[in-house]
Structures are given as C-alpha cells and as structure tokens.
C-alpha cells in the first residue's frame, strides 16, 4: 500500500462526496423549506443522466447533453411539484413517503418506456479524457474536473442563498413559512422554484456521474439512500450540514472499502479478510448515521435550533 494509492482513494472519496452533495443539497433544501421528504429525488438524478446521455449521443457534444440533462430534471421537478408534491405539504411523513415512492415507480417505468430497458453509455468529454500528474499520483482528469465542478456549484449555491433576493426568501421560508406568505411573497411559486432548483442539481449530478457509470433505470435509488444518510448526518435542512455530511460519507465509504480488507488481512487469511472487510465497509456509513442519530438526534448541524 503506497502513499500514492491512499491519495488516489482519498481524492475518489472527495469526488464521490461532492457528487453526493449535489444530490443532498436539493433534498435538504426541499425538506428545510417545505418540510417534505422526497423519495423521488433519485428519479430526477436518473432523468438528468438519461437526457444527458441521449442528447450527447445525438449531438456528439457532452456539454449540450449536460445542459439538456439539467434542464430536463428541473422541468420534471417543476412539473411534479405542481401536479403532485404541492398536495403533500400539509400531509404527514407517511403520506409523503408513499406518494413519492409511487412517483419512483411511475418515473422509473416512464423512463424505461421512453429509453428502453438497456443501459445507455455516456462518454467522458474529449477535453477531460486521460490522466494528469499530481506530483506522486496520476489521476483521472475527469474525476478531478468533477471535484472542481462540485466545489464551484457549492460556492454558487452558497452565493445564491447568502447573497440574492431568492436566497433571502428561501432562508425566510425555512424559518417561517406563514410569515413570508403574509409579507406578500408568492409562496407557491417559491416552492416550485426551490423544488426545480433541487431537481436541477440532482439532474446535474446524474449527468456528471453518468459518464463514469452506466446510465440505467434504478441508478438513482442507491444514491438517493446515500443522500438521505448525508442529510440525516448533517442535519436536515442545513446546506452546510449537507456539505460536511456528504464529504464524511464520501470519504469514509471510499476509504473503508479500501482500508478495511487490508486491515483485516494483517491478522486473518486473505480471502476471509476480504469478505469481512467488504461486509463491514459496506455497513460503515449506516453505522455512522446510527451513531450520529443516537448522540445527536437532529444531526451535526441542526437547521432549526
């Protein structure tokens, strides 16, 4: 085990964490502002990836595909907010879980009907292929670009929420929904915008990750569950918490899968160590989440005090 290998895995963890952040940011915003638990967020991730792959294949241009993916996910988000989600704000969590579970079934089958049952493939854009030398390690340019992309979007999101009028309204919506409605803000439109914003971020994540994985129906759900782990660890409703949680989950998951089998191999037989290590590594982040909830039942950065 060399330092270069550890560094590479660490970068992979950060890259994974930042993609999780893109997913979690929308989820946590929607929960913070509207009090809604949205299981269908993973479907928006899938829609972003599928549209990006389809448009990129048709036009030969990855960036055009990326824009299409974001736009499609945001539009789908706005549409389902207006048609379905809007009726769920006043309902309890059970109804929200069920209705958005139903949306997963509908959107997954819908995508399967439109794009067929086979996975699509999305190539990494020409300019970002190959590797780059980072002193002691050769690292994939595309993954490095994902890290840059993730950081830039996080910065943009922070600016949007901290510096713009829309951001002020979103924050006001988080602390007191009735009051900002009484102050004359069109709360329904605000909700739709926040939902579409979160959906667009999910679509972006799906499109970006689609280039290093296969684009297939059901790709959103594993990421969705990880994003839930992230926002529960970070504190539901907190963007800062989502960032910390996403990096924690990304790095711990990646490093756990890398280090635990090697750790067990120091005192066990190799094949057995691989099994035990892998089993434990895959449970690690859920263990972390359970621990956080037991000691900090509202997450690391509780959003509402």
């Amino acid at each position, binding site marked *: 085990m060399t330092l270069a290998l550890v560094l590479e895995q660490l970068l992979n963890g950060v890259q994974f964490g930042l993609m999780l952040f893109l997913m979690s940011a929308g989820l946590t915003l929607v929960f913070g502002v509207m009090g809604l638990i949205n299981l269908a967020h993973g479907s928006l991730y899938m829609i972003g990836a599928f549209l990006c792959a389809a448009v990129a294949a048709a036009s030969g241009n990855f960036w055009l595909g990326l824009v299409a993916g974001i736009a499609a996910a945001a539009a789908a988000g706005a549409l389902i907010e207006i048609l379905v989600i809007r009726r769920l704000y006043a309902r309890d969590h059970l109804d929200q879980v*069920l209705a958005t579970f139903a949306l997963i079934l509908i959107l997954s089958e819908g995508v399967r009907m439109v794009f067929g049952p086979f996975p699509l493939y999305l190539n990494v854009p020409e300019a970002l292929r190959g590797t780059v030398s980072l002193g002691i390690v050769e690292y994939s340019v595309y993954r490095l670009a994902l890290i840059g992309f993730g950081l830039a979007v996080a910065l943009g999101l922070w600016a949007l929420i901290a510096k713009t009028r829309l951001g002020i309204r979103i924050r006001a919506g988080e602390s007191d929904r009735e009051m900002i409605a009484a102050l004359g803000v069109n709360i329904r439109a605000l909700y739709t915008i926040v939902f579409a914003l979160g959906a667009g971020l999910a679509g972006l994540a799906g499109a970006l990750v689609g280039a290093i994985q296969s684009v297939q129906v059901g790709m959103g759900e594993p990421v969705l569950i990880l994003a839930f782990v992230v926002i529960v660890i970070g504190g539901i409703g907190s963007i800062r918490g989502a960032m910390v949680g996403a990096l924690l989950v990304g790095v711990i998951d990646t490093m756990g899968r890398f280090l635990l089998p090697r750790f067990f191999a120091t005192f066990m037989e190799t094949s057995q160590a691989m099994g035990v290590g*892998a089993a434990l590594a895959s449970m690690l982040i859920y263990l972390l989440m*359970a621990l956080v909830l037991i000691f900090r039942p509202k997450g690391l950065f509780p959003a509402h005090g």
Partner: protein
Amino acid sequence: MDSTRKEWLLNALIAGALFAVPLWACVVNEPFIITLATRIAILAIAAVGLNIALGLGGMVSFGHALYLGLGGYVAGIAAHHAFHGTEILGLPGTNQMLPIWALATVLSGLVAGVVGALSLRTSGIFFIMITLAFAQMGFFFTLSWPAYGGEDGLPIFVRNQFPGLNTARPWEMFLLAYAVLMLCLAAFAGLRAARFGAALMAIRQNPDRAAALGISPFGIKLVAFVLSGMITGLAGAMMADLTRFVSPAMMAWTVSGELIVIIILGGVGRLFGPVAGAAILVGFEVFFGGLTEHWKLWLGLVLLAVVLFARGGFIGLLAGRVRHGG
C-alpha cells in the same frame, strides 16, 4: 348498517375468499393459484407485524424488510446446515419449521429490540431514516458476507417440514400459512382490544396526554416495535420456505416500502387491512403484469391516487371511516 358491522362483514368476506379461491384451485388442480394465495397470506402476516408498529403505534418503520430477511435467513441457514449435515456454532441445522419459526421470531425480536431502543430516541423523519439505515446495514451485510451465498442468495433444496403435513404439496403449505395468518390476526385483534393496545393508540394520538395519564411512551412503543418485528420475522421464515430461496433482495429497501404500501392499500390500523392490501398488490402484479411489462407504472398511479384521494385504503373505501381514529 354502521361502519363497524360493515367492516366485520367485509373481514369475513376477505377471509372466506382467501380460503375459497385456493380451495377451488385445489379442486381444479391449479397449483399456481394456490401458491399465489399462499404468497398473499405470508405477505399479509409480514404486514400484520408492521401494522402493529405503523397502524397502532404510528411508528413509520421504513426498515421492516430487515426482519423479513432475518427470518428468511434463519430458515435458509438452518436448512442449509441440515442438508449438508454440518454444524453452526456447535448446533446442528434443522429442517423442522417449528424450531425455525421459534428461532426466527426470537432473533427478529432481539434485533427489533436493539433497533427500536436506538431508533425510538428520534421521531418523525429521523425515525423513518434510522430504521431504513438499520435495514440497509442488514442488506449490505448479507450482500457481502460470502459464507451463505452473498449476492447470489441461498437456496433451500427441500422445503422444511411441519409435523403432520406434507409441506411440499401446495395446498397443505397454503393451509399452514392461512392458519398462521389467522392466528396472527387474532393476536393483533387481541392486542388492539387489550389495555396495551389502548395505551399504544393513546400514545400515537397524543403522546403528551398519554404521558400525563401515567403511560410511559418509550416502553410501550418499544414493546410494540419488538412484537411487530417478531411477526414480520416469522413471515420471513415462511416466505423463504415458500420460494425455497433467500437472498439479500429480501432485505432491500423497496421491500420495506412494499410492506408499507400493502398496509396503505388495505387501510392503516385495520385488522384485515394487511390481507386486503397483500391481495391487491399480488393481484395487481399478476393481472397487470400479464397485460403489460410496464405494470409498475400503473401500480404507481393507483398508489398515488390512494394516497392523495382515498386515505382509508380499500377497507376504508368500503366500510367507511373509523370514528375514533382506530
């Protein structure tokens, strides 16, 4: 006719139909339909378990697949060792359902006790998520643990046995599942009518008022959660025997979702809600699954419509609303 009598009539009809249809299938020799009815009965047992936590206690557990899978693996592992004549932790395997059921129930209860004790410190969306997290732990553990098949699952080569029955025959396996279902329903009804059930429902409706009456919410909810996990674990052992196969897929989060869907389709907190819901879900899958490969789209639309417009589920639709919140 008032809604309580209507509901009892409906319950009798559902119980009768679930018996009559496979009986007819037995007469005309249609084993597929008998197995389908057995599947409905076993799924209903699992959902009766969840209905204690969700319907009576208002605890939205999004991780009951964990207990289903645990029960399944108890049956699978016991049969595996019995088949190969090997030992596990110094004990021989077994191909007898009764000890398997006992072990599945006790083990599920123990795990539910730990999960419940930790999860009940939280509430609302955090409770939903932490129960999901525990189930995911189980899912990934079984997925990556190689000893019992890992990702590929574990087959049960010969269905486990029950004294006096030939469980390999579909009709006798159905009778067994049906009898267990009726026992579980009786237990649910008894629990609901007992002081314990009253306390549990009082906590769901108003925890502060219940606490002011001297009822400790944590203890009652924990006991309910444990009982809930035990029944679902029992169903898991039976399900593994029905399909003669157990795999991590039994612990997947979608299974937890489906168990909730069954209860909602049938009617939350209703005695026969899980039975009606399981029949609707399985019937939907078989009927629409035969018509179109995209049946899940239609299931999603129906579920969405039930959540948005028919909140009492199937039984609520036909028997009317419960006046005192069930």
